[in-house]
């Protein structure tokens, strides 16, 4: 009997496992892939501030490139530059990073096992009380006081456990990415983002440099587009002088939640962490930080519940409250911003690119100063409704 079983060794699962093991609980972390961290489904960007807030000190091999700023391109080609400050962001090597996070959990005492697929939950008097799965093709069953689903966007465990987490498919973007080498990157210390409904419907294209001539080149677009995301990405690469001669080292894909946060992420003896609960920043799709922060919150609530010997839904409800207080409410504001962005025409984008500074954009993506944006939108009659939604 474990105190806690965690399904999925992404950043969310490993963070939960680490924090709980540190507190002395018996924890098992199961991952279906044969190699933790691979293949990646990620652009690998995270800000230094976030890394510090999580109290992480990742080894050198997890960090490929330090970032100073961003260049955001409007459909007209006009770029708005953002200065984040020297070395204030990282492009990670997620394969290394995810594995390192799992290692850290194991070092604190968690039992980590790859190639272990969890396909069902065990129940006792109707309540979740463990898992059923297959580890290196051997079937097994294990009991636990609490089960944590950190199984990513394809989360099955929550549904099997009895929480309906199905969300509106419009809240999930379709993403695909090439890791490319042999390309020319004008400024490897900047990330580059390209907007425009013709090149990326309701989304954007990105170039996240991993060195002078290596980068993640990807796209995230609305999930109900009749043309697959990869076709837009191929076109972008073909039309870009700096990219078109490059080679492709990896093809990655995945879904990117852009809203639809869950009010209820708990049941008796059960809670959800990370992408499985759509805990992602809806404007840029960043979830590495969100998943780990949620893991930390979950670990604190689980600790309290186990100490009180009360792991009921009522007790675990504190996780819902705490997550919404720390993250949900501000992410919800950012979701509103995304709703505005997805309704802008290329002309609107060009107009805003002329009016806004890099500083404005940084504020917006943090959910601040949205009034400034609303005021600009109010000047364009067809955008008044959107502006009001922001105010």
């Amino acid at each position: 009997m474990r105190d806690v079983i965690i399904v999925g060794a992404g950043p969310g699962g490993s963070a939960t496992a680490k924090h709980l093991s540190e507190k002395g609980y018996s924890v098992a972390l199961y991952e279906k892939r044969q190699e933790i961290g691979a293949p990646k489904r990620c652009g690998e960007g995270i800000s230094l501030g976030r890394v510090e807030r999580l109290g992480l000190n990742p080894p050198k091999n997890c960090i490929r490139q330090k970032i100073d700023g961003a260049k955001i391109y409007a459909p007209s080609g006009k770029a708005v530059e953002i200065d984040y400050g020297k070395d204030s962001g990282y492009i990670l090597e997620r394969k290394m990073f995810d594995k390192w996070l799992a290692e850290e959990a194991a070092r604190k005492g968690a039992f980590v096992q790859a190639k272990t697929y969890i396909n069902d939950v065990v129940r006792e008097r109707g309540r979740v009380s463990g898992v059923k799965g297959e580890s290196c093709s051997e079937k097994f069953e294990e009991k636990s006081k609490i089960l944590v689903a950190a199984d990513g966007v394809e989360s099955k465990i929550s549904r099997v456990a009895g929480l309906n987490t199905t969300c509106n498919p419009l809240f999930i973007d379709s993403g695909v990415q090439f890791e490319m080498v042999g390309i020319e990157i004008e400024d490897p210390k900047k990330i580059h983002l390209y907007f425009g409904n013709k090149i990326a419907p309701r989304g954007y294209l990105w170039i996240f440099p991993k060195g002078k001539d290596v980068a993640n080149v990807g796209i995230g677009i609305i999930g109900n587009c009749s043309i697959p995301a990869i076709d837009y990405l191929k076109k972008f690469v073909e039309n870009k002088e700096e990219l078109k001669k490059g080679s492709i080292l990896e093809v990655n894909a995945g879904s990117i939640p852009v809203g639809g946060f869950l009010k209820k992420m708990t049941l008796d003896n059960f809670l959800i962490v990370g992408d499985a609960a759509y805990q992602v920043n809806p404007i840029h799709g960043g979830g590495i930080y969100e998943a780990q922060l949620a893991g930390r919150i979950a670990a604190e609530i689980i600790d309290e519940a186990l100490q009180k010997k009360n792991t009921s839904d009522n007790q675990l409800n504190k996780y819902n409250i705490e997550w919404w207080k720390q993250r949900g409410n501000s992410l919800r504001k950012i979701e509103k911003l995304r709703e505005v962005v997805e309704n802008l025409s290329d002309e609107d984008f060009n107009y805003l690119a002329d009016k806004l500074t890099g500083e404005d954009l940084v504020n917006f993506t943090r959910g601040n100063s949205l009034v400034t944006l609303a005021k600009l939108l109010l000047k364009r009659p067809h955008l008044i409704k959107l502006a009001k939604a922001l105010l």
Partner: protein
Amino acid sequence: MFKWNKNKCLRCGGCISVCPNDALELTEHGIVRDEKKCITCGICDLFCPVGAIKVKKDRDK
């Protein structure tokens, strides 16, 4: 009709996340569909980032 192209598929799990009826699963053999749950709505087809799923509405459903 539901067709999954195993050579195109990147095993990203995206289709599973958007299926409103929980009809898909990613197993060792790739994407498996539960015919009883699927209503051939085509959401997974539109979603797939690489166009690996093709769905046509079944007449009898």
